Each structure stands twice: as C-alpha cells, then as structure tokens.
C-alpha cells in the first residue's frame, strides 16, 4: 500500500470542487485586503497555529517518554523491551486501521500534496501524525519529531486554506508554508526550515514564496520560544578552527559521512519494499519487532539510540564518549533507525540523521587526533560538523545542512569546515547513490515527483547550443531593393536576415525580394517595403526553451550580443533547435540504457 496515494482525494471531492469556485471571499474586502496581503497575514496565523501544535507535540513526546520509559538514565531493564514492542503494536493498529496516511516521515507526503493533490492534506493526517508519532518516539522508536512536525504544520495550513476557500494557486502553497512553520518550530531554527522547504519541497525561489515561508517560520519559532524558551537543542561547546591544513581532516570526515549516508539510505531503500511486500497481517507486528530490536540494543548497553537522542548528542558534543563507543553508537543508530523507519512507524529522519552524524563526527575526529595530535579541533567541533555532514549526504540538502549547523551552533567560525565536509559528503553520497532518499521513497510508493536535485543538476540546453553560424549574406534595410537583389544573386540561401535601422532585425525570402524587384520597387529602400517588420532576437545564454516560442513563426531568429544588439552572434532555426533536443534525448536514452 502506498504511503502517499492514501492522501489523495478524488478530484471530485467537495473540497476540490469548492476550489474551482471563483474566490468570492476577496470580492467583499472593499479594497482593504488584496489576495497577496491576506495570504501573507494568513501565513502568520499558520505559523502561530503550527507553533502551538508543535509545542503540544513536543510535550506529548516528553510526556509519553516519561510515562512509558521514565527519565532515560534511570530506565528499568524490562521497560526497554516491553514498551517499544507493546506500543509498536498499538501504533501499527492505528496506522493501518485509523490513520493510513501517516506512515514514514511526512516530507514526501507534503511534497506530493504540493505537486499532485493541489495542496490537499487531510486534517486527519495531522491528528494521526501527532498521536502516533508521539507514541512511537516517546516509546523509544529511533525516529525524530521534526518531519512529523513538518507534516502537522502542512496539514494544519492545508485545512485552513481549504476552509477559507483561497485560490488554487495559493492553496498549493499552503502546505509548504505550513511545513516550514512546523519544521522551524521543531528545530527552533527558522532559516534552516525556510531553506529546507524551498530547497527540497518547493524547489524554486520567488519573492512571494520566500516572504510567506519566512513569515510562517518566524511566527512559529516565536511561539515555540515563548512556551519552551529559547534554549538551543544542544549546549554548544567551544569550537575551534585554527589552521587551514586541518580542512583535510574535515574533508576526510565528509567522505566517511558520505559513505555512512549511502549505507543508511541503501539499507532503507533495500528493506522498505521488502517489508511492504510482506502479507498485510505482518504489518501489524513490524513496528513491534522494530521496537523489540531497539529495546535489545538499548538493553545491551546503548540506550542512547532510543528516541530522537538529543541528550546523547549533547553528551557526545562534550566528549563524554570514547571514539570507539561513538562509532558503535553511529552504527547502532543506523540499524535502529532503519528498523523503525522501514517498519512503518511514523516518525522523522532528521534527528536520527543528526545523531548518526554527531557520533560519526566525534569518532572520526577523536581517531584523527590520535594519529595527528597537532589537530586543534575539539570533539565538539567534529560532532557539530558531523551533524551537517550526514544531513548533506543523507537528506541531500547541502545548503540547509550548512545553515542548520550554523544556526544550531550560533558559531560562524566553523563555517569553512562545515562547507568542506558537507561538500565531500554530498559528492561521495551522490556518486554512490544516484537517487536521493526522499526521491527513492516516493518512487517506491509509485509516485514520480519532481526531483529537485535532478533539476538542480540537469544540464540546461541554451540558445548557443543550437546556434548556427552567422549567415554569409546579411541585407540592410537602408539599401535599395535592387542593390539587395544583386547581393543575393550569388548566394545559395533562400532566407536572409535584414539589419534594420537604427537597430533590430527583420527577415525576407529570396522570392519576396525578387517579387519586390519585379513589382518595380527596385528604387525603394528595403526597410520601407519589407513584408514583415521587426523580428524577435535571442541571446546566446538564454535557455533553448525560449527559442521554442518563435521557431514556428520565423524561419530564422537572430542571436545577438547582450552588450551590442547590432552584433550578430549567430542564428537559430526550427531545424537547429529540434535537432539539438533530438540529440539530447538520444544521449539520455543511451545513458539510461
């Protein structure tokens, strides 16, 4: 069963029909609010409601955790086994029977809402995600609260948008706006949330989108800080970066992080379809089994891997663990998070990613310092950089990963190590796993959503790629028709560009020119008798798509220099453009084969 398809309303559902009704709402505003202004104000309210929901969600997780497991350092042995297993059964029942659209993290569902379902996310999803994710994370499943917060925010925003019958275009944007608010509230980091949503969900920048997303993110963070304080997620240790030569150490950390990201992503990508393909009754037991395995790991000495694990990250940041234990924790967290995620328990991947990165960063940093004692970076510095490394490698959000580390640490000094390490991680991960994890999950669910990484990296065809050389014969509009006729007699071409005065281009065929001459217009200036006047021109750096608008109307289109529009760089024709697209397609087919 697909995680995403269950979110889809039939296109004939009442809410969708209502969307097609002209927006009567704005006709009654008497000029006080136009749609843009109203939408921006609405974004603030979305931020407030999402913030309130996330505050409750975090309280619910903490309450569940304390009620079910007790304060972690004092958790009793039997609870480590019993709680995740029993609660896993309950969660599975709820997910399968009551809230079928809440499996997994929620990022893909939000993206699907934007691209497929016109911004529609049922409000039931918010309730289900809230209850089930709080149960799962609170009982020790190795998942985080950030992605569910994102989906809860998106769901609230979508419901609000539908209730207010805003336009389809704005309704589509509601889900990402709510997602940004939810994520910002969960992370207490508005910039990272805005970047993530724009980088991974919306995929394009515009002033309108940015403004609305920022407004909702900021207002939700204000709400969370109001209730839960402005304490950062971690106590940030003293971080140091003294010598540029140490960047090699961070590059190595990035490479190791990239490898770990690939292992993590491939584990999920391999196991998830297998478990989903098992008989339906087994799905009732999968979260319980995952909980049992996690409980076993915790019982055997690593309770740190349970839940989101922020306390353990904090301790790793302050050098509480030896490098071997850090490495073991990273490995066990990959296992535990894979179990939890593929079992269908609702919860996010952000916190586990940060946890694995933190432990790996600490382990690699400590190990490097054993071999190279002259390295000055503290364990805390490597832990922080490691968090960004996994974020860049696993979630494949390089910009968000950099800003997230900066925002969480509040320290600009480590930006260079973070950028270097994240870049290496991203490159290693991309070279070993072509499809990013979120895209992989959507494809496993049978959906083809636009891959923003692919879009980002797609080689864009430009006008210059299809450009033909400057024609040998160029006519002048200021010359007489008979002079121009004489000039074309020696040319084999059938279509000629005409340079207009004082600027611009036009076009004329050999037949048209000869006809003008035969009509006795030889003593007329060509510019005054041209059948078609000005011709659109293109620039070499424009996307080739922009030529498509003209190629059917004009046999030749001049390509001119941006600095001097009279200077011809070449021409494009219908044939040259289509030929270029054809050769590109052939190359793609060859590559995919």
């Amino acid at each position: 069963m697909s995680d995403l398809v269950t979110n889809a309303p039939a296109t004939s559902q009442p809410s969708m029909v209502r969307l097609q009704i002209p927006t009567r709402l704005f006709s009654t505003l008497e000029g006080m609010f136009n749609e843009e202004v109203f939408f921006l104000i609405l974004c603030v309210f979305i931020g407030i409601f999402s913030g309130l929901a996330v505050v409750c969600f975090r309280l619910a997780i903490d309450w569940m955790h304390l009620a079910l497991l007790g304060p972690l350092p004092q958790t009793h042995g039997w609870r480590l086994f019993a709680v995740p297993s029993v609660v896993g059964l309950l969660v599975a029942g709820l997910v399968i029977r009551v809230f079928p659209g809440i499996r997994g993290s929620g990022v893909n569902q939000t993206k699907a809402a934007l691209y497929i379902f016109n911004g529609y996310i049922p409000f039931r999803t918010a309730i289900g995600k809230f209850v089930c994710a709080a149960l799962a994370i609170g009982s020790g499943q190795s998942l985080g609260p950030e992605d569910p917060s994102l989906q809860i925010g998106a769901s609230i925003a979508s419901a609000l948008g539908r209730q207010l019958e805003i336009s389809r275009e704005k309704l589509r944007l509601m889900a990402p706006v709510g997602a940004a608010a939810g994520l910002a509230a969960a992370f207490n980091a508005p910039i990272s949330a805005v970047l993530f949503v724009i980088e991974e969900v919306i995929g394009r920048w515009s002033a309108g989108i940015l403004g609305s997303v920022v407004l909702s993110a900021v207002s939700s963070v204000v709400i969370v800080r109001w209730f839960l304080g402005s304490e950062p997620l971690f106590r940030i240790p003293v971080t140091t970066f003294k010598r540029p030569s140490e960047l090699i150490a961070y590059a190595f950390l990035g490479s190791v992080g990239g490898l770990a990201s690939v292992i993590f992503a491939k584990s999920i990508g391999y196991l998830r379809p297998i478990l989903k393909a098992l008989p339906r009754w087994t799905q009732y037991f999968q979260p319980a089994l995952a909980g049992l395995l996690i409980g076993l790991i915790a019982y055997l000495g690593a309770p740190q891997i349970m839940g989101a694990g922020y306390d353990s990250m904090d301790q790793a940041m302050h050098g509480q663990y030896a490098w071997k234990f850090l490495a073991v924790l990273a490995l066990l967290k990959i296992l535990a998070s894979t179990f939890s995620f593929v079992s269908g328990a609702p919860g996010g991947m952000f916190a586990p990613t940060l946890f694995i990165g933190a432990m790996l960063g600490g382990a690699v940093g400590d190990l490097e310092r054993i071999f190279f004692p002259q390295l000055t970076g503290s364990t805390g510095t490597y832990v922080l950089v490691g968090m960004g490394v996994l974020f860049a490698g696993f979630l494949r959000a390089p910009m968000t990963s950099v800003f997230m580390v900066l925002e969480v640490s509040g320290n600009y000094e480590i930006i260079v190590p973070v950028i270097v390490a994240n870049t290496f991680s991203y490159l290693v991960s991309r070279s070993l796993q072509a499809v990013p994890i979120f895209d992989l999950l959507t494809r496993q669910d049978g959906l083809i959503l636009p891959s923003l990484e692919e879009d980002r990296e797609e080689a864009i065809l430009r006008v210059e790629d299809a450009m033909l050389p400057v024609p040998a014969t160029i006519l002048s509009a200021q010359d007489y028709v008979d002079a121009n006729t004489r000039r074309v007699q020696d040319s084999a071409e059938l279509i000629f560009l005409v340079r207009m005065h004082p600027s611009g281009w036009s076009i004329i065929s050999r037949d048209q020119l000869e006809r003008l001459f035969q009509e006795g217009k030889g003593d007329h200036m060509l510019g005054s008798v041209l059948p078609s006047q000005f011709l659109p021109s293109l620039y070499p750096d424009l996307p080739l798509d922009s030529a498509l608008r003209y190629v059917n109307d004009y046999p030749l289109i001049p390509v001119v220099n941006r600095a001097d529009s009279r200077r011809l760089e070449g021409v494009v024709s219908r044939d040259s453009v289509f030929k270029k697209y054809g050769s590109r397609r052939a190359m793609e087919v060859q590559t995919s084969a």
Partner: protein
Amino acid sequence: MPRSAPVILVLLTLAAVTGFAGVSHLVARFTANQQARGRKLYQQGLGDASAGRYDDAISAFRAALTCDPANSQYQLSLARALRDSNDPRRLDEAESYLIALWQRTPQDAAINLALARVAAHRGSIEDATRYYHNSMYGVWNSNPDLNRNKARIELIQFLLKKADSPQAESELMALAASLPPDAVAHLQAAQLFAQAQDSAGALAQYREVLRLDSRNPAALAGAGEAAYRSGNYATALRYLRAAVNANPEDGNSRRLLESAEQVLHASPFQSHISDAERNRRITAAFTQAEQRLNQCAQQTDIDLKATASPSASPFSTLQSLWTATKPDLARLRSPAETDLPDAIMDVVFQIERQTATTCGPPEGLDLALLLISQKREAASQ
C-alpha cells in the same frame, strides 16, 4: 462561513488567543508536573553526591534536568558532580554547563567558584585565579565574608600546590587583612603562611591566634616552629616550651625545642655570654667540626690523608684549612684578636655546610652549628 477578510482575521485571532491560552495551561501543568519530578530526582542526586556516589548523582541530576532542562541549580549540581567525579573526560561537560550558567549570571559567586575549581582541576593558574577572584568579588546569597575568605583560601592552596609562591603570598596578605577576629581563621592563615615559607607572616598570625586563645596548642607549636624557621631561637624556645607543656605528645615541638636549646647553648655569638664562655663554645664547635668531617669522610669512603693535596677535593681542602686554623685557637684569649672568633667559626661553618651537602642533614650539635651558620649567612646578606 464568513466571507469578509476582516471577520476572518478576527476569528483567526480569537482562535489563536484561545489556542494560546489552552497551550499555556497545558504547558504550565506539564511544567509543574515535571518540576516536581525533577525536584525529587535532584534530592536523590544531592544525597548520592554527598555520599561520594558521583556516577549515581550524575545520573540523577541528568534525569532531573530532563524534567526541568533550564533549572540553573540542577545544572550547577550536575556540573559539580561531573567535576568531582575525577573523570577528566567529564570536565569539558562540567565546564560547558558552568559557562552557560556564567553567561546568564556572570556575577554569581557560586558559579564562578565552580568554574575556578574546574580550571584548578585542569591546572590552569590563569583561569583559576580569574574565576576565584570573580567568586571573591561576586554576589553570594549567604555569608558573603566567610565565603569570600573560603574562596581566597582555596585559591591560595591551589597556588601553593602549583608552587606559585609570590602570587600565593600576595593573596595571603590580602587574606590576613580581611580576616575576622576568629582564632580558627587566623590559625588557618598562619598555616598557609607557613606552607608558603613565610615564617614571619606565619608567626604574626600565630601570635594573633594566641592573642585570642592564649592556650591554643597548635598556635603555640606553630609559633615556635615559625620563630625557629626564621632563626629567632630565643622566641622559638619560649613558644616551644609552652607547646610541649601544653601537649607533651607533640614530638615535633620537642625536637625543635631541643634543637633551639642547642643553638642557644652552642652559639658563640650570643650577646650576653662572657669571653671565656664564648671561647669555650668556639673551641667546642671547632672540635665538633673536625669530628663531623672525619665521620663524613669515613661514611663516604674519602681518605683524608691520601688526598692531602690541596686541590684534590673539598674535603681535603677543608681538612687542610682546619689543620692550619687549629693553632689559632690558642690566640683566642688575646684581646687584640678581634676577628679571630669569626675566622675560626667560618672554618667550622664551611665544614658543616660541606658535610651537610655530602652526608645529609646533621643532628645534635652539628645541626645547631649549621643553623647558626645559616642565621649568620642570612644576617650578612
């Protein structure tokens, strides 16, 4: 469903206010619940910490902090437990908690004191001194004077441990000036002066103790020892006798008393003795010096006769010097020979110093002669 934007905004505002109130109520209840749980865990941690079970205490404080993450007292207690657990890896975390607290209340003396102790654990004199000073001049919630003096004493002890005597002495002077009229406090200061090898300062503090508590045996013994160390043997004799009378079990005072008596009986430089007595003491010292030289040579297998060459060794040089000086003893009675006692005693002192260097600390009359030598040397400097 209202269709007017202003109406919608009013309704949304009402919904937000309602939600805000509801969440406030929830958060307040949850927080109160958590705080109660945290207090219980905190008390448990305090019990563990006071019993020296730091691992349990750390665990309990951590659990308390999961219930009430922003609680400064819990953070401070956790930091202290981390610091006191004697695990160097935990110092970073302790410091991190304390720095976070310090950034919030840099004037808090208790936090500064905890940070000073972390720096002292690390052995950083500069940081420790800075935080101890912050603690002394910071805000104490109770007994500020007492706590300030305690902090200063801790700093002095740390500096003495790190062998930074000049800074320790300057802190000691500041401490002495700020002490209340309390025998215990002055006694502690006197002991610190003695530890810093400032015998004069120590003697002054012991005298202050005796002014407040004239029969204090520790002060009597300390004053005697301080006077003895500073070469004031007559004063030392007085205090040490009183100390031995007050506490006959005090072996150290008895030993120092005997040594001081011997110094006073052996010194030819005492002002109130007759010429005959002075000459007798010089002769006795001279004879004792030869015995000491021979014993030491024997002990270290040095044959004084075989190495009679003047440049052979310090021992043979001293032997030659002693032999050359011996005839001068007969001229001691002559009133014209005013420099002769010093010249003879100089030979004695050279032998005592050399033998002390080669054969270790002397005892009895030799020790007395060495002490007289050191006092003369200090006086001449």
